[in-house]
């Protein structure tokens, strides 16, 4: 099995996961310290999903993200400095400080935006796939990430039906983390696997271990291949768990902290990566992982420094970017 993944790919994936983890730890700390305003949702524990999927994409493929978007943004290749500056509301941020955590986007790397509206991305990704395939005449693929909660929005149905009817190159990546805010998944849905719904659209629906970046990568690579070949959409359900509160600062009155901690220890995707890549496949050593962790820790220190040193937007510029014509 070892030959399946190059060392380069493994390193790239570990680095991305570690970068996300460090990014989120940094944001969490600063948010709790009152340095970051607004609402922030972190991706800790779910890093393998964004990483595995984006590793299977080209730079010019497009992704639609969620309210929990930092991980997707890092995985697609955004610069963590510019991301951090955005989250701190600085003019140097990816969105010039206009967006913040919940609207982080980097069009240069095909990251079309986090979204404050749960389920807001389904149709955008599908429309982008339509445009690319039919009118812009390229073979780009769209991916939409979405939660278990988002899967109950009507937009899920409208987008996936259109994508399947028209055989569009879009991949529906479900981050099945068992919670929608305070609400356990099974209280809002009658099926164990959300991907059972794929059958109703006659598209492939697969379930993967979302904590294992290799498994996610494999499923994504296959879906990307199908999409590029014109064989239409795929539904990938990644089983994961929301380790942190829904938002940073969530008192989590609705669940047991011990149980969450236990799940974290058992399913941490970085830990699992080390077991797979180092112990089982031998394509990377644990020391190499440690080095990447250190590298990422430094990156984040610099990112924070960059953000803090960056200027605030000029308040008078509040009307900039409302319209493009003018």
């Amino acid at each position, binding site marked *: 099995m070892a030959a399946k993944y190059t060392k380069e790919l493994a390193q790239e994936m570990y680095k991305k996961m570690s970068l996300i983890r460090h990014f989120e730890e940094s944001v969490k700390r600063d948010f709790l310290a009152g340095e970051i*305003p*607004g609402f922030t949702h972190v991706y800790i524990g779910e890093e393998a999903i964004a990483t595995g999927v984006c590793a299977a994409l080209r730079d010019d493929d497009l992704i639609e993200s969620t309210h929990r978007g930092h991980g997707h943004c890092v995985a697609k290749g955004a610069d963590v400095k510019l991301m951090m500056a955005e989250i701190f509301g600085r003019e140097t941020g990816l969105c010039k400080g*206009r967006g913040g955590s919940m609207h982080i986007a980097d069009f240069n790397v095909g990251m079309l935006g986090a979204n404050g509206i749960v389920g807001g991305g389904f149709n955008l990704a599908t429309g982008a796939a339509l445009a690319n395939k039919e009118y812009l005449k390229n073979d780009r693929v769209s991916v939409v990430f979405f939660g278990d909660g988002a899967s109950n929005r009507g937009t899920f149905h409208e987008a996936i039906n259109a994508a399947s009817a028209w055989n569009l190159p879009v991949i529906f990546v479900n981050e099945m983390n068992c919670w929608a805010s305070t*609400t356990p998944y099974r209280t809002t849905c009658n099926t164990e696997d959300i991907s059972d719904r794929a059958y109703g659209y006659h598209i492939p629906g697969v379930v993967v271990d979302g904590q294992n970046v290799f498994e996610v990568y494999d499923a994504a690579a296959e879906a990307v291949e199908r999409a590029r070949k014109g064989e239409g959409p795929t539904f990938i359900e990644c089983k994961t768990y929301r380790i942190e509160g829904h938002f940073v600062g969530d008192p989590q009155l609705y669940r047991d902290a011990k149980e969450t901690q236990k799940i974290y220890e058992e399913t941490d995707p970085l830990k699992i990566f080390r077991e797979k890549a180092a112990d089982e496949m031998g394509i990377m050593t644990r020391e190499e992982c440690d080095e990447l962790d250190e590298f990422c820790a430094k990156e984040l220190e610099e990112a924070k420094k960059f953000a803090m040193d960056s200027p605030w937007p000029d308040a008078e510029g509040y009307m900039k970017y409302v319209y493009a014509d003018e």
Partner: protein
Amino acid sequence: MREITFSQATLEAMEEEMLKDDTIFVMGEDLARQGGIFGQFKGLSDKFPGRILDTPISETFIVGGGVGAALAGARPVVDMHFADFIGVCMDEIYNQMAKVRYMFGGQAKVPLVLRAPDGMVVGGAAQHSQCNEAWFMHIPGIKVVAPSDAYKAKMVLKAAIESDDPVIFFEHKVLYPATFEVPEKEDEKPYVLGTADIVKEGTDVTIVSYSVGLKTARAAADMLEKEGISAEVIDLVTISPWDKETILNSVKKTHRFVVCHEAVKQGGVGAEIAATVAEEAIDYLDAPTLRFGAPFCPIPFSSAFDQIVRVQPDDMVAKIKEMF
């Protein structure tokens, strides 16, 4: 007098009404297990087991299902989580909730309350900061309220629940934790939907607002007072149908009209009220009407913009002084 928060006031209203009528139930996201995203439903699910429902993230079901439940004979209270999400179920609001009674020639009634936490919070950014009450003022068949303090929150919510018509109850996110003096329960007076409240009498200028806008209006009035200008401050309370008489009478007395709200100025509630004043009381005006609202942009995230997108009392004062 006793002191409670705005949140507690809505809880008292809910509890009193739910005790009276078993067919009242509540649905929305994150209400039962955490007591609502702003704690405004806290404790209700223990007091009324099975009557506070955490729904899927399916707002067309929350509102459309509420309408269906009302048609069947229940009295649902449904929650919008953030008023920003209301577009997701806009059709259920304006083509179903607002119209079924009329279209069916009075066969139906829709005793439904839609609670909608709205407004800016620091860093809320474009999709979690909106005030969209003006849309609903333009829709016949619904009533729209937006209380500004705890006592009103309680009495207005009770009136909304008791009403046989659909009511959208806008509750501003920054008001929830704020503490207000309220009367003892035995001294409470029922609120009559559609009535405005003169919160401060004055003789020189009428300032109309609602929801958190009232705080801005009062602050401006206090500053004006120091400059020798006596402002009458009116809380609209009900945005639709609104209390034309109270406002026109005040303008006829003060001869100057000002309205302010947190929502975008263009096409806002203030436009309707100012236009009505210009239509029905222009001869009493000694100065142009004045409107204050947010500039015509989505709400930016960065704290750098915090002040610039909010109506500032000193800005109001400066412009009001020019009326004299």
